[in-house]
Protein backbone atom coordinates (compact mmCIF):
# COMPACT_ATOMS: atom_id res chain seq x y z
CA UNK A 1 0.00 0.00 0.00
CA UNK A 2 1.19 3.49 -0.80
CA UNK A 3 -0.28 6.12 1.50
CA UNK A 4 -0.27 9.86 1.03
CA UNK A 5 -1.07 11.51 4.33
CA UNK A 6 -2.10 15.19 4.37
CA UNK A 7 0.44 16.31 1.80
CA UNK A 8 0.76 19.92 0.69
CA UNK A 9 3.25 21.26 -1.85
CA UNK A 10 4.44 24.79 -2.38
CA UNK A 11 6.15 25.76 -5.64
CA UNK A 12 7.52 29.26 -6.10
CA UNK A 13 5.65 30.37 -2.97
CA UNK A 14 2.38 29.18 -4.45
CA UNK A 15 0.45 26.37 -2.80
CA UNK A 16 0.04 23.91 -5.66
CA UNK A 17 -1.34 20.98 -3.64
CA UNK A 18 -3.41 21.39 -0.52
CA UNK A 19 -3.87 18.68 2.07
CA UNK A 20 -4.06 15.65 -0.21
CA UNK A 21 -4.58 12.21 1.31
CA UNK A 22 -4.65 9.06 -0.76
CA UNK A 23 -4.45 5.31 -0.22
CA UNK A 24 -3.31 3.34 -3.24
CA UNK A 25 -3.55 -0.43 -2.91
CA UNK A 26 -1.27 -2.90 -4.63
CA UNK A 27 -3.24 -5.05 -7.05
CA UNK A 28 -5.14 -2.03 -8.34
CA UNK A 29 -4.67 0.83 -10.75
CA UNK A 30 -5.05 4.14 -8.98
CA UNK A 31 -5.65 7.03 -11.36
CA UNK A 32 -4.97 10.70 -10.70
CA UNK A 33 -7.24 12.80 -12.89
CA UNK A 34 -8.10 16.47 -13.18
CA UNK A 35 -7.82 19.39 -15.57
CA UNK A 36 -4.53 20.86 -16.80
CA UNK A 37 -2.58 22.50 -14.02
CA UNK A 38 -4.66 20.91 -11.27
CA UNK A 39 -1.57 19.39 -9.65
CA UNK A 40 -1.53 15.82 -10.99
CA UNK A 41 2.15 15.82 -11.95
CA UNK A 42 2.98 17.66 -8.75
CA UNK A 43 1.31 14.95 -6.66
CA UNK A 44 3.22 12.26 -8.52
CA UNK A 45 6.48 14.18 -8.09
CA UNK A 46 5.87 14.41 -4.36
CA UNK A 47 5.36 10.64 -4.26
CA UNK A 48 8.60 10.12 -6.21
CA UNK A 49 10.51 12.39 -3.79
CA UNK A 50 11.36 14.93 -6.48
CA UNK A 51 9.68 17.79 -4.61
CA UNK A 52 9.77 18.80 -0.97
CA UNK A 53 6.36 18.55 0.67
CA UNK A 54 4.62 18.94 4.00
CA UNK A 55 2.90 15.82 5.30
CA UNK A 56 3.89 12.17 5.06
CA UNK A 57 4.06 9.52 2.38
CA UNK A 58 4.42 5.83 3.27
CA UNK A 59 5.39 2.87 1.13
CA UNK A 60 4.16 -0.36 2.74
CA UNK A 61 4.23 1.38 6.10
CA UNK A 62 7.76 2.80 5.81
CA UNK A 63 8.12 6.52 5.44
CA UNK A 64 9.27 6.90 1.87
CA UNK A 65 11.80 9.65 2.61
CA UNK A 66 13.67 7.29 4.94
CA UNK A 67 14.45 4.88 2.11
CA UNK A 68 17.69 5.32 0.19
CA UNK A 69 17.72 5.98 -3.53
CA UNK A 70 18.72 2.49 -4.51
CA UNK A 71 16.24 0.90 -2.09
CA UNK A 72 13.45 2.94 -3.63
CA UNK A 73 14.68 2.15 -7.13
CA UNK A 74 14.23 -1.56 -6.44
CA UNK A 75 10.63 -1.02 -5.32
CA UNK A 76 9.19 1.55 -7.66
CA UNK A 77 9.89 2.85 -11.14
CA UNK A 78 8.81 6.20 -12.53
CA UNK A 79 7.71 7.12 -16.04
CA UNK A 80 8.11 10.88 -16.54
CA UNK A 81 5.64 12.91 -18.56
CA UNK A 82 8.18 13.83 -21.24
CA UNK A 83 11.72 12.63 -21.79
CA UNK A 84 14.42 14.23 -23.84
CA UNK A 85 17.64 12.28 -23.93
CA UNK A 86 21.16 13.57 -24.38
CA UNK A 87 23.44 11.66 -26.78
CA UNK A 88 22.54 9.10 -29.44
CA UNK A 89 21.65 6.02 -27.38
CA UNK A 90 19.97 3.09 -29.09
CA UNK A 91 16.60 1.87 -27.91
CA UNK A 92 18.18 -1.23 -26.41
CA UNK A 93 20.71 0.83 -24.46
CA UNK A 94 17.95 3.00 -23.00
CA UNK A 95 15.88 0.03 -21.89
CA UNK A 96 18.94 -1.55 -20.29
CA UNK A 97 19.40 1.52 -18.06
CA UNK A 98 16.36 0.25 -16.18
CA UNK A 99 17.88 -3.22 -15.83
CA UNK A 100 20.89 -1.97 -13.94
CA UNK A 101 18.69 -0.27 -11.34
CA UNK A 102 16.48 -3.24 -10.50
CA UNK A 103 16.56 -5.32 -7.34
CA UNK A 104 17.82 -8.55 -8.80
CA UNK A 105 20.26 -9.45 -11.54
CA UNK A 106 18.25 -9.82 -14.72
CA UNK A 107 19.03 -11.93 -17.76
CA UNK A 108 20.34 -10.11 -20.79
CA UNK A 109 17.21 -10.89 -22.77
CA UNK A 110 14.95 -9.01 -20.35
CA UNK A 111 15.26 -5.78 -22.31
CA UNK A 112 14.02 -7.47 -25.49
CA UNK A 113 11.15 -9.02 -23.55
CA UNK A 114 10.16 -5.61 -22.21
CA UNK A 115 10.26 -4.11 -25.69
CA UNK A 116 7.97 -6.90 -26.88
CA UNK A 117 5.54 -6.10 -24.05
CA UNK A 118 5.16 -2.51 -25.27
CA UNK A 119 4.84 -3.59 -28.89
CA UNK A 120 8.29 -2.46 -30.00
CA UNK A 121 9.95 -5.72 -31.01
CA UNK A 122 12.47 -5.02 -33.72
CA UNK A 123 13.09 -1.45 -32.53
CA UNK A 124 16.10 -2.34 -30.35
CA UNK A 125 18.69 -1.21 -32.91
CA UNK A 126 17.05 2.15 -33.68
CA UNK A 127 18.29 5.42 -32.27
CA UNK A 128 15.94 6.72 -29.58
CA UNK A 129 15.92 10.20 -31.08
CA UNK A 130 14.74 8.86 -34.42
CA UNK A 131 11.48 7.54 -32.97
CA UNK A 132 8.10 9.26 -32.88
CA UNK A 133 6.83 10.72 -29.61
CA UNK A 134 4.55 7.77 -28.96
CA UNK A 135 7.30 5.27 -29.67
CA UNK A 136 9.68 7.13 -27.37
CA UNK A 137 7.09 7.02 -24.61
CA UNK A 138 6.77 3.25 -25.01
CA UNK A 139 10.55 2.81 -24.96
CA UNK A 140 10.58 4.68 -21.65
CA UNK A 141 7.79 2.44 -20.41
CA UNK A 142 9.86 -0.62 -21.35
CA UNK A 143 12.78 0.84 -19.38
CA UNK A 144 10.53 1.43 -16.39
CA UNK A 145 9.16 -2.11 -16.65
CA UNK A 146 12.60 -3.72 -16.60
CA UNK A 147 13.41 -1.82 -13.41
CA UNK A 148 10.59 -3.45 -11.43
CA UNK A 149 9.95 -6.46 -13.63
CA UNK A 150 8.51 -8.72 -10.95
CA UNK A 151 5.28 -7.18 -9.55
CA UNK A 152 6.11 -8.66 -6.16
CA UNK A 153 9.69 -8.17 -5.05
CA UNK A 154 11.61 -9.24 -1.95
CA UNK A 155 10.11 -6.32 0.03
CA UNK A 156 6.52 -6.77 -1.07
CA UNK A 157 4.67 -5.26 -4.01
CA UNK A 158 6.56 -3.11 -6.52
CA UNK A 159 5.07 0.03 -7.95
CA UNK A 160 4.76 1.64 -11.36
CA UNK A 161 4.33 5.41 -11.09
CA UNK A 162 3.27 6.66 -14.51
CA UNK A 163 2.72 10.27 -15.60
CA UNK A 164 0.31 10.25 -18.54
CA UNK A 165 1.53 6.91 -19.91
CA UNK A 166 -0.88 6.91 -22.85
CA UNK A 167 -1.27 10.60 -23.70
CA UNK A 168 0.66 10.51 -26.98
CA UNK A 169 -0.40 7.04 -28.10
CA UNK A 170 -2.93 5.93 -30.69
CA UNK A 171 -6.00 4.09 -29.47
CA UNK A 172 -4.56 0.64 -30.14
CA UNK A 173 -1.43 1.31 -28.16
CA UNK A 174 -3.42 3.09 -25.46
CA UNK A 175 -5.32 -0.12 -24.85
CA UNK A 176 -2.14 -2.20 -25.07
CA UNK A 177 -0.37 -0.07 -22.45
CA UNK A 178 -3.36 0.09 -20.12
CA UNK A 179 -3.77 -3.68 -20.36
CA UNK A 180 -0.11 -4.04 -19.51
CA UNK A 181 -0.63 -1.89 -16.41
CA UNK A 182 -3.75 -3.85 -15.51
CA UNK A 183 -1.83 -7.10 -15.87
CA UNK A 184 0.93 -5.76 -13.60
CA UNK A 185 -1.67 -4.92 -10.98
CA UNK A 186 -3.43 -8.26 -11.41
CA UNK A 187 -0.16 -10.03 -10.66
CA UNK A 188 0.13 -8.17 -7.37
CA UNK A 189 1.97 -4.95 -8.25
CA UNK A 190 0.78 -1.43 -7.61
CA UNK A 191 0.12 1.16 -10.31
CA UNK A 192 -0.45 4.88 -9.86
CA UNK A 193 -1.09 6.66 -13.14
CA UNK A 194 -1.77 10.27 -13.97
CA UNK A 195 -4.48 10.03 -16.59
CA UNK A 196 -5.75 12.45 -19.17
CA UNK A 197 -8.40 10.27 -20.72
CA UNK A 198 -11.48 9.81 -18.54
CA UNK A 199 -12.81 6.89 -20.57
CA UNK A 200 -9.64 4.83 -20.27
CA UNK A 201 -9.59 5.75 -16.60
CA UNK A 202 -13.14 4.48 -16.19
CA UNK A 203 -12.25 1.24 -17.99
CA UNK A 204 -9.04 0.40 -16.15
CA UNK A 205 -8.80 2.17 -12.80
CA UNK A 206 -10.20 0.76 -9.59
CA UNK A 207 -9.50 3.93 -7.60
CA UNK A 208 -9.64 7.51 -8.83
CA UNK A 209 -8.58 10.73 -7.18
CA UNK A 210 -10.02 13.81 -8.88
CA UNK A 211 -8.01 17.00 -8.46
CA UNK A 212 -9.05 20.56 -9.17
CA UNK A 213 -6.81 23.56 -8.39
CA UNK A 214 -4.69 21.53 -6.01
CA UNK A 215 -7.59 20.08 -4.00
CA UNK A 216 -8.89 16.53 -4.05
CA UNK A 217 -12.56 17.05 -4.79
CA UNK A 218 -13.43 13.36 -4.93
CA UNK A 219 -11.89 9.99 -4.34
CA UNK A 220 -13.12 6.43 -4.78
CA UNK A 221 -14.13 3.88 -7.41
CA UNK A 222 -15.03 5.15 -10.92
CA UNK A 223 -18.78 5.05 -10.40
CA UNK A 224 -18.39 7.36 -7.41
CA UNK A 225 -16.00 9.86 -8.92
CA UNK A 226 -17.08 10.04 -12.55
CA UNK A 227 -20.40 11.77 -12.06
CA UNK A 228 -22.00 14.69 -13.92
CA UNK A 229 -21.75 16.96 -10.95
CA UNK A 230 -18.14 16.28 -9.89
CA UNK A 231 -16.72 16.31 -13.43
CA UNK A 232 -18.59 19.44 -14.37
CA UNK A 233 -17.23 21.17 -11.31
CA UNK A 234 -13.67 19.96 -11.88
CA UNK A 235 -13.43 20.69 -15.59
CA UNK A 236 -15.54 23.84 -15.65
CA UNK A 237 -17.96 22.71 -18.32
CA UNK A 238 -21.28 20.94 -18.23
CA UNK A 239 -20.45 17.25 -18.70
CA UNK A 240 -22.83 14.33 -18.84
CA UNK A 241 -21.63 10.89 -17.94
CA UNK A 242 -23.15 7.94 -19.79
CA UNK A 243 -22.93 4.30 -18.83
CA UNK A 244 -22.12 1.52 -21.24
CA UNK A 245 -24.32 -1.59 -21.27
CA UNK A 246 -22.98 -4.61 -19.34
CA UNK A 247 -20.44 -4.38 -17.91
CA UNK A 248 -21.54 -0.93 -16.80
CA UNK A 249 -18.64 1.45 -17.31
CA UNK A 250 -19.03 5.23 -17.17
CA UNK A 251 -18.06 7.18 -20.28
CA UNK A 252 -17.79 10.84 -21.14
CA UNK A 253 -18.23 12.13 -24.66
CA UNK A 254 -17.33 15.68 -25.64
CA UNK A 255 -20.39 15.59 -27.94
CA UNK A 256 -22.58 15.41 -24.87
CA UNK A 257 -21.01 18.37 -23.12
CA UNK A 258 -23.00 21.58 -22.97
CA UNK A 259 -20.64 24.51 -22.90
CA UNK A 260 -21.21 26.66 -19.85
CA UNK A 261 -21.35 29.70 -22.10
CA UNK A 262 -24.34 28.31 -23.96
CA UNK A 263 -26.33 27.24 -20.94
Amino acid sequence: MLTVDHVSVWLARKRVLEDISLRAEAGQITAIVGPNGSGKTTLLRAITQELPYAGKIYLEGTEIGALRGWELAARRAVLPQASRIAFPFTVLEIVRLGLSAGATAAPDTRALEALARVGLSGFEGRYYQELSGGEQQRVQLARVLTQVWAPIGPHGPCWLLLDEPVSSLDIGHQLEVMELAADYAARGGGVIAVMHDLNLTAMFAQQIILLASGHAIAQGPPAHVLTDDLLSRAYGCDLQVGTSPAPPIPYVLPQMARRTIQS
Partner: protein
Amino acid sequence: MTLALSSEPFARPQGDRRGRARMAGWVLALVLVLTSSVSLNVGASGVNLLEIIGTLARGDALDARTRLILFDIRLPRLAMGILVGAALAVSGAVMQGLFRNPLADPGLVGVGAGAGLGAITAIVLGASLPVTMQAGLGIYLVPVAAFLGGWLTTILLYQISTSRGRTSVAVMLLGGIAMGALAGALSGILIYMADDAQLRDLTFWGLGSLAGATWTKIWIAGPLIVLALAAAPFLARALNGLALGEAPAAHLGIPVQRMKNIAILSVAAATGAAVAVSGGIGFIGIVVPHLLRLLIGPDHRYLLPNAALLGASLLIAADMVARVVIAPAELPIGIVTATLGGPFFLWILLRNRTLLDM
Protein backbone atom coordinates in the same frame (compact mmCIF):
# COMPACT_ATOMS: atom_id res chain seq x y z
CA MET B 1 29.11 -19.31 -14.57
CA THR B 2 29.53 -15.78 -15.78
CA LEU B 3 32.61 -16.91 -17.64
CA ALA B 4 30.68 -19.65 -19.38
CA LEU B 5 28.00 -17.14 -20.30
CA SER B 6 30.33 -14.55 -21.70
CA SER B 7 32.32 -17.02 -23.77
CA GLU B 8 29.14 -18.49 -25.17
CA PRO B 9 28.80 -17.40 -28.77
CA PHE B 10 25.31 -15.92 -28.55
CA ALA B 11 24.04 -13.46 -31.10
CA ARG B 12 24.01 -9.92 -29.79
CA PRO B 13 20.74 -8.14 -30.42
CA GLN B 14 20.78 -5.12 -32.67
CA GLY B 15 21.53 -1.92 -30.84
CA ASP B 16 23.93 -3.69 -28.49
CA ARG B 17 27.28 -2.00 -29.02
CA ARG B 18 29.08 -3.52 -26.05
CA GLY B 19 31.00 -6.04 -28.13
CA ARG B 20 32.19 -3.35 -30.47
CA ALA B 21 33.10 -1.10 -27.53
CA ARG B 22 35.22 -3.82 -25.92
CA MET B 23 36.91 -4.56 -29.21
CA ALA B 24 37.66 -0.85 -29.63
CA GLY B 25 39.26 -0.94 -26.20
CA TRP B 26 41.70 -3.65 -27.24
CA VAL B 27 42.50 -1.93 -30.52
CA LEU B 28 43.07 1.41 -28.79
CA ALA B 29 45.31 -0.20 -26.18
CA LEU B 30 47.39 -1.65 -28.99
CA VAL B 31 47.48 1.71 -30.74
CA LEU B 32 48.71 3.32 -27.53
CA VAL B 33 51.51 0.77 -27.18
CA LEU B 34 52.55 1.35 -30.79
CA THR B 35 52.45 5.15 -30.63
CA SER B 36 54.37 5.04 -27.37
CA SER B 37 57.12 2.91 -28.90
CA VAL B 38 57.40 5.11 -31.95
CA SER B 39 57.43 8.18 -29.74
CA LEU B 40 60.36 6.83 -27.73
CA ASN B 41 62.17 6.46 -31.04
CA VAL B 42 61.65 9.96 -32.31
CA GLY B 43 63.67 12.98 -31.26
CA ALA B 44 66.29 15.55 -32.10
CA SER B 45 69.13 13.20 -31.17
CA GLY B 46 69.69 10.01 -33.15
CA VAL B 47 68.92 7.66 -30.28
CA ASN B 48 67.11 4.67 -31.70
CA LEU B 49 64.95 2.22 -29.77
CA LEU B 50 65.92 -0.81 -31.88
CA GLU B 51 69.61 -0.14 -31.30
CA ILE B 52 68.96 0.23 -27.59
CA ILE B 53 67.08 -3.07 -27.47
CA GLY B 54 69.92 -4.65 -29.47
CA THR B 55 72.48 -3.34 -27.01
CA LEU B 56 70.50 -4.56 -24.04
CA ALA B 57 69.92 -7.94 -25.69
CA ARG B 58 73.68 -8.38 -26.08
CA GLY B 59 73.93 -7.74 -22.37
CA ASP B 60 75.89 -4.52 -22.82
CA ALA B 61 75.25 -1.41 -20.74
CA LEU B 62 73.89 1.71 -22.37
CA ASP B 63 76.22 4.65 -22.64
CA ALA B 64 75.52 7.64 -20.44
CA ARG B 65 74.22 9.88 -23.20
CA THR B 66 71.72 7.32 -24.44
CA ARG B 67 70.54 6.66 -20.90
CA LEU B 68 70.08 10.36 -20.29
CA ILE B 69 68.09 10.88 -23.47
CA LEU B 70 65.96 7.81 -22.94
CA PHE B 71 65.25 7.94 -19.22
CA ASP B 72 65.40 11.64 -18.44
CA ILE B 73 64.03 13.19 -21.62
CA ARG B 74 61.94 10.85 -23.72
CA LEU B 75 60.39 8.60 -21.08
CA PRO B 76 59.13 11.38 -18.80
CA ARG B 77 57.82 13.19 -21.84
CA LEU B 78 55.98 10.06 -22.95
CA ALA B 79 54.59 9.45 -19.46
CA MET B 80 53.39 13.03 -19.26
CA GLY B 81 51.80 12.78 -22.70
CA ILE B 82 49.88 9.69 -21.65
CA LEU B 83 48.74 11.23 -18.37
CA VAL B 84 47.76 14.58 -19.82
CA GLY B 85 46.06 13.12 -22.91
CA ALA B 86 44.04 10.68 -20.82
CA ALA B 87 43.16 13.39 -18.28
CA LEU B 88 41.92 15.84 -20.93
CA ALA B 89 39.88 13.28 -22.87
CA VAL B 90 38.25 11.68 -19.83
CA SER B 91 37.54 15.06 -18.23
CA GLY B 92 35.90 16.18 -21.46
CA ALA B 93 33.70 13.08 -21.59
CA VAL B 94 32.70 13.46 -17.93
CA MET B 95 31.81 17.14 -18.36
CA GLN B 96 29.77 16.40 -21.48
CA GLY B 97 27.89 13.68 -19.63
CA LEU B 98 27.28 15.90 -16.62
CA PHE B 99 26.09 18.88 -18.66
CA ARG B 100 24.25 16.58 -21.08
CA ASN B 101 25.88 18.49 -23.89
CA PRO B 102 28.45 17.20 -26.39
CA LEU B 103 30.06 20.65 -26.55
CA ALA B 104 30.86 20.92 -22.86
CA ASP B 105 34.49 20.74 -21.85
CA PRO B 106 36.46 21.15 -18.64
CA GLY B 107 36.78 24.85 -19.45
CA LEU B 108 33.15 25.15 -18.43
CA VAL B 109 33.90 24.60 -14.77
CA GLY B 110 36.37 27.43 -14.87
CA VAL B 111 39.50 25.29 -14.69
CA GLY B 112 40.97 26.54 -17.93
CA ALA B 113 40.43 30.23 -17.31
CA GLY B 114 41.50 30.00 -13.67
CA ALA B 115 44.61 28.00 -14.49
CA GLY B 116 45.47 30.44 -17.26
CA LEU B 117 45.15 33.38 -14.90
CA GLY B 118 47.30 31.60 -12.34
CA ALA B 119 50.01 30.84 -14.88
CA ILE B 120 50.01 34.34 -16.33
CA THR B 121 50.20 35.85 -12.86
CA ALA B 122 53.18 33.63 -12.08
CA ILE B 123 54.97 34.47 -15.31
CA VAL B 124 54.42 38.22 -15.14
CA LEU B 125 54.55 38.88 -11.43
CA GLY B 126 56.84 35.98 -10.47
CA ALA B 127 59.87 38.09 -11.29
CA SER B 128 58.94 40.57 -8.59
CA LEU B 129 58.80 37.93 -5.84
CA PRO B 130 61.59 37.98 -3.27
CA VAL B 131 64.64 36.24 -4.71
CA THR B 132 64.63 33.54 -2.02
CA MET B 133 61.08 32.53 -2.92
CA GLN B 134 61.90 32.52 -6.60
CA ALA B 135 64.84 30.24 -5.94
CA GLY B 136 62.71 27.96 -3.78
CA LEU B 137 59.85 27.56 -6.20
CA GLY B 138 61.96 27.80 -9.33
CA ILE B 139 60.44 26.16 -12.37
CA TYR B 140 57.46 24.99 -10.31
CA LEU B 141 56.12 28.47 -9.78
CA VAL B 142 54.06 28.47 -12.98
CA PRO B 143 52.57 24.96 -12.65
CA VAL B 144 51.71 25.46 -8.99
CA ALA B 145 50.08 28.82 -9.69
CA ALA B 146 48.16 27.32 -12.61
CA PHE B 147 46.87 24.45 -10.52
CA LEU B 148 45.84 26.71 -7.66
CA GLY B 149 44.15 29.12 -10.06
CA GLY B 150 42.18 26.34 -11.72
CA TRP B 151 41.19 24.64 -8.50
CA LEU B 152 40.15 27.83 -6.71
CA THR B 153 38.03 28.96 -9.65
CA THR B 154 36.22 25.64 -9.75
CA ILE B 155 35.54 25.61 -6.03
CA LEU B 156 34.23 29.17 -6.19
CA LEU B 157 32.01 28.40 -9.16
CA TYR B 158 30.79 25.27 -7.42
CA GLN B 159 29.84 27.27 -4.33
CA ILE B 160 27.98 29.79 -6.45
CA SER B 161 25.93 27.15 -8.24
CA THR B 162 25.11 25.05 -5.19
CA SER B 163 22.30 26.05 -2.93
CA ARG B 164 20.52 23.90 -0.34
CA GLY B 165 22.68 20.94 -1.25
CA ARG B 166 21.76 20.93 -4.90
CA THR B 167 24.14 21.98 -7.67
CA SER B 168 22.45 23.61 -10.61
CA VAL B 169 24.18 22.60 -13.79
CA ALA B 170 22.61 25.52 -15.66
CA VAL B 171 23.88 28.09 -13.14
CA MET B 172 27.28 26.49 -13.30
CA LEU B 173 27.35 26.75 -17.08
CA LEU B 174 26.45 30.43 -17.10
CA GLY B 175 28.59 31.21 -14.05
CA GLY B 176 31.51 29.52 -15.79
CA ILE B 177 31.11 31.85 -18.75
CA ALA B 178 31.05 34.88 -16.44
CA MET B 179 34.09 33.73 -14.45
CA GLY B 180 35.90 32.89 -17.68
CA ALA B 181 35.33 36.42 -18.94
CA LEU B 182 36.51 37.88 -15.66
CA ALA B 183 39.65 35.75 -15.58
CA GLY B 184 40.25 36.66 -19.22
CA ALA B 185 40.04 40.36 -18.40
CA LEU B 186 42.44 40.05 -15.47
CA SER B 187 44.81 38.05 -17.67
CA GLY B 188 44.54 40.80 -20.27
CA ILE B 189 45.68 43.41 -17.76
CA LEU B 190 48.67 41.26 -16.82
CA ILE B 191 49.55 40.61 -20.46
CA TYR B 192 49.48 44.36 -21.01
CA MET B 193 52.07 44.70 -18.24
CA ALA B 194 54.32 41.92 -19.54
CA ASP B 195 57.67 42.49 -21.26
CA ASP B 196 58.74 40.77 -24.47
CA ALA B 197 60.36 37.73 -22.92
CA GLN B 198 57.37 37.18 -20.66
CA LEU B 199 55.05 37.51 -23.65
CA ARG B 200 56.90 34.73 -25.45
CA ASP B 201 56.63 32.54 -22.34
CA LEU B 202 52.92 33.32 -22.13
CA THR B 203 52.25 32.43 -25.73
CA PHE B 204 54.15 29.18 -25.44
CA TRP B 205 52.35 28.29 -22.24
CA GLY B 206 48.97 29.19 -23.69
CA LEU B 207 49.46 26.86 -26.65
CA GLY B 208 50.71 24.03 -24.50
CA SER B 209 53.76 21.82 -24.71
CA LEU B 210 55.13 18.65 -23.22
CA ALA B 211 58.68 19.96 -23.54
CA GLY B 212 59.17 20.69 -19.86
CA ALA B 213 58.44 17.14 -18.75
CA THR B 214 60.50 15.94 -15.81
CA TRP B 215 60.03 13.08 -13.41
CA THR B 216 59.47 15.56 -10.59
CA LYS B 217 56.56 17.16 -12.43
CA ILE B 218 55.13 13.74 -13.11
CA TRP B 219 55.39 12.78 -9.46
CA ILE B 220 53.45 15.92 -8.59
CA ALA B 221 50.78 15.89 -11.28
CA GLY B 222 50.60 12.15 -11.87
CA PRO B 223 48.96 11.06 -8.61
CA LEU B 224 46.26 13.73 -8.94
CA ILE B 225 45.50 12.68 -12.49
CA VAL B 226 45.54 8.96 -11.68
CA LEU B 227 43.27 9.51 -8.70
CA ALA B 228 40.80 11.49 -10.80
CA LEU B 229 40.90 8.90 -13.60
CA ALA B 230 40.30 6.15 -11.05
CA ALA B 231 37.05 7.88 -10.05
CA ALA B 232 35.76 7.75 -13.63
CA PRO B 233 34.51 4.12 -13.62
CA PHE B 234 32.35 4.92 -10.59
CA LEU B 235 30.80 7.80 -12.49
CA ALA B 236 29.95 5.82 -15.61
CA ARG B 237 26.57 4.43 -14.56
CA ALA B 238 25.54 7.78 -13.10
CA LEU B 239 26.43 9.61 -16.30
CA ASN B 240 24.40 7.09 -18.32
CA GLY B 241 21.45 7.72 -16.04
CA LEU B 242 21.91 11.49 -16.25
CA ALA B 243 21.44 11.27 -20.01
CA LEU B 244 17.76 10.71 -19.16
CA GLY B 245 17.70 13.83 -16.98
CA GLU B 246 18.36 14.46 -13.31
CA ALA B 247 15.02 13.28 -11.95
CA PRO B 248 14.92 10.02 -13.95
CA ALA B 249 18.52 9.36 -12.87
CA ALA B 250 17.50 9.75 -9.25
CA HIS B 251 14.57 7.38 -9.85
CA LEU B 252 17.06 4.81 -11.06
CA GLY B 253 18.60 4.98 -7.60
CA ILE B 254 21.61 7.05 -8.60
CA PRO B 255 22.85 9.44 -5.87
CA VAL B 256 22.84 12.35 -8.30
CA GLN B 257 24.26 15.06 -6.05
CA ARG B 258 27.13 12.92 -4.79
CA MET B 259 28.00 11.94 -8.34
CA LYS B 260 28.00 15.59 -9.38
CA ASN B 261 30.40 16.39 -6.56
CA ILE B 262 32.76 13.61 -7.56
CA ALA B 263 32.55 14.51 -11.25
CA ILE B 264 33.29 18.20 -10.74
CA LEU B 265 36.08 17.72 -8.24
CA SER B 266 37.80 14.99 -10.21
CA VAL B 267 37.60 16.98 -13.44
CA ALA B 268 39.02 20.03 -11.67
CA ALA B 269 41.86 17.95 -10.25
CA ALA B 270 42.69 16.15 -13.49
CA THR B 271 42.51 19.15 -15.79
CA GLY B 272 44.07 21.45 -13.22
CA ALA B 273 47.07 19.14 -12.93
CA ALA B 274 47.24 18.55 -16.69
CA VAL B 275 47.07 22.23 -17.56
CA ALA B 276 49.59 23.04 -14.86
CA VAL B 277 52.30 20.80 -16.31
CA SER B 278 51.56 21.15 -20.02
CA GLY B 279 49.79 24.47 -20.56
CA GLY B 280 46.51 24.92 -22.38
CA ILE B 281 46.11 22.05 -24.84
CA GLY B 282 42.77 22.41 -26.52
CA PHE B 283 40.69 20.09 -28.61
CA ILE B 284 41.44 16.68 -27.10
CA GLY B 285 38.62 17.02 -24.58
CA ILE B 286 35.99 17.61 -27.25
CA VAL B 287 37.23 15.61 -30.22
CA VAL B 288 38.10 12.35 -28.51
CA PRO B 289 34.77 11.71 -26.74
CA HIS B 290 32.93 12.78 -29.84
CA LEU B 291 34.79 10.40 -32.15
CA LEU B 292 34.24 7.58 -29.72
CA ARG B 293 30.53 8.27 -29.41
CA LEU B 294 30.23 7.91 -33.17
CA LEU B 295 32.25 4.71 -33.07
CA ILE B 296 30.98 2.83 -30.00
CA GLY B 297 28.00 4.85 -28.74
CA PRO B 298 27.61 7.03 -25.66
CA ASP B 299 27.62 4.33 -22.95
CA HIS B 300 30.03 5.85 -20.42
CA ARG B 301 31.15 2.48 -19.08
CA TYR B 302 33.05 2.06 -22.34
CA LEU B 303 33.35 5.69 -23.41
CA LEU B 304 35.48 6.73 -20.42
CA PRO B 305 38.23 4.06 -20.58
CA ASN B 306 38.37 4.28 -24.36
CA ALA B 307 38.64 8.05 -24.14
CA ALA B 308 41.64 7.66 -21.84
CA LEU B 309 43.37 5.39 -24.35
CA LEU B 310 42.57 7.45 -27.43
CA GLY B 311 43.34 10.76 -25.71
CA ALA B 312 46.74 9.47 -24.65
CA SER B 313 47.56 8.13 -28.14
CA LEU B 314 46.46 11.30 -29.88
CA LEU B 315 48.46 13.58 -27.61
CA ILE B 316 51.60 11.47 -27.99
CA ALA B 317 51.16 11.47 -31.75
CA ALA B 318 50.66 15.22 -31.79
CA ASP B 319 53.74 15.64 -29.63
CA MET B 320 55.81 13.64 -32.12
CA VAL B 321 54.66 15.90 -34.90
CA ALA B 322 55.46 18.94 -32.78
CA ARG B 323 58.98 17.63 -32.24
CA VAL B 324 59.87 16.75 -35.83
CA VAL B 325 58.21 19.32 -38.09
CA ILE B 326 60.65 22.15 -37.47
CA ALA B 327 63.40 20.14 -35.73
CA PRO B 328 65.60 20.92 -33.91
CA ALA B 329 63.12 23.58 -32.75
CA GLU B 330 59.68 22.58 -31.47
CA LEU B 331 56.16 23.69 -32.21
CA PRO B 332 53.76 24.24 -29.32
CA ILE B 333 51.58 21.15 -29.24
CA GLY B 334 48.36 23.18 -29.21
CA ILE B 335 49.20 24.35 -32.73
CA VAL B 336 49.51 20.75 -33.88
CA THR B 337 46.31 19.52 -32.26
CA ALA B 338 44.40 22.46 -33.73
CA THR B 339 45.82 22.38 -37.29
CA LEU B 340 45.46 18.63 -37.66
CA GLY B 341 42.43 18.19 -35.43
CA GLY B 342 40.37 21.11 -36.72
CA PRO B 343 39.93 20.02 -40.34
CA PHE B 344 39.57 16.37 -39.35
CA PHE B 345 36.87 17.22 -36.87
CA LEU B 346 35.04 19.32 -39.46
CA TRP B 347 35.16 16.41 -41.87
CA ILE B 348 33.71 14.06 -39.26
CA LEU B 349 30.98 16.56 -38.47
CA LEU B 350 30.00 16.94 -42.11
CA ARG B 351 29.80 13.19 -42.56
CA ASN B 352 27.64 12.59 -39.50
CA ARG B 353 25.19 15.43 -39.58
CA THR B 354 22.10 13.46 -38.72
CA LEU B 355 23.62 11.88 -35.63
CA LEU B 356 24.74 15.26 -34.39
CA ASP B 357 21.31 16.71 -34.00
CA MET B 358 20.48 14.07 -31.40
